């Protein structure tokens, strides 16, 4: 059976999310971050990567409603297309380095109910080799203004 590669990103001990292998282009340890005044809590930092300024989304803030950290231990640089179909780059702040896993169709599962906040940005879900239910996220939506408005309404 054909397998696809996915990066599994840990949000906390019970919550994981993933993107396809091709969407994650670089992993940076402890990058310099710049705080953008008045930016939404979940994406108030930016980093410089290859002469590009990238917004950094804090997963723990999005999914656990925790306060965003000033520092980023690990940033996963993601490539995606915006609503104008233009290639963009963004960062996701994580506590630990994501792991690459090869997934086949037999591992697909229904999106669990507890991940209510992930529903609108999840494409599908699979059971990881560790037995976790891992939603596959839509990065274009994640970095969109529409999702940002939704999160702000939810006070993140």
């Amino acid at each position, binding site marked *: 059976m054909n397998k696809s590669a996915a990066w599994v990103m840990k949000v906390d001990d019970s919550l994981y999310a993933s993107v396809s292998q091709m969407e994650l282009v670089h992993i940076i340890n402890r990058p310099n971050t710049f705080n953008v*005044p*008045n930016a939404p809590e979940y994406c108030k930092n930016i980093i410089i990567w290859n002469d590009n300024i990238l917004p950094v*989304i804090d997963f723990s803030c999005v999914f656990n409603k925790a306060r965003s950290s000033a520092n980023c231990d690990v940033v996963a640089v993601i490539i995606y297309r915006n609503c104008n179909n233009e290639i963009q780059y963004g960062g996701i702040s994580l506590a630990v380095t994501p792991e690459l896993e090869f997934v086949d169709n037999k591992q697909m599962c229904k999106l669990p109910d507890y991940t209510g906040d992930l529903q609108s940005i999840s494409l599908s879900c699979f059971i990881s080799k560790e037995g976790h239910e891992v939603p596959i996220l839509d990065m274009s939506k994640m970095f969109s*203004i529409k999702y*940002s408005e939704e999160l702000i309404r939810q006070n993140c």
Partner: protein
Amino acid sequence: MIQALKKDNELLDDEYLQFMSLSLGNIELLALQSSVISIDGIQDIDYEEPSIKSVGWVNFDNHRIPVYSFTERFDLEQSISNNNKKICAVLKDEDIFISLMCLEATSFRQQIVKLTSLPECMQAQPSPIDSLCLCRNDNKSDVGFIITTKSIVKYINQYATQ
């Protein structure tokens, strides 16, 4: 306005966009030097009947211009008695005038390498920041926050309706 000058996200080669740095304390805002038409002191402020959310007025070339003071979190201050800002930078864009109080107004010396729009995910919340710039000084990279007359006015109007 800034994006009308440059295509978004292109590296700037030999061209030099001149900016002024307006300090609010720990935050510096960059405004195109050509948009800053006057630098006044607080002694020039008329505090009589300020407009909504402003602290007073300054006069320039027969125009009566509202003066605004932001905190570092971009809250509008209604009184300046407790702040250290002593300077009013007057910005103009076509027929729009606005004055911003700041601690310092100086020429921005770093090289601006690239301009980029404020990321989409950051645009959902009102902000006076129009765009960002990648700056370089002695091989060290930095990020600048660019404001325009229009972006300030838009933010104030949004803020006033909250």
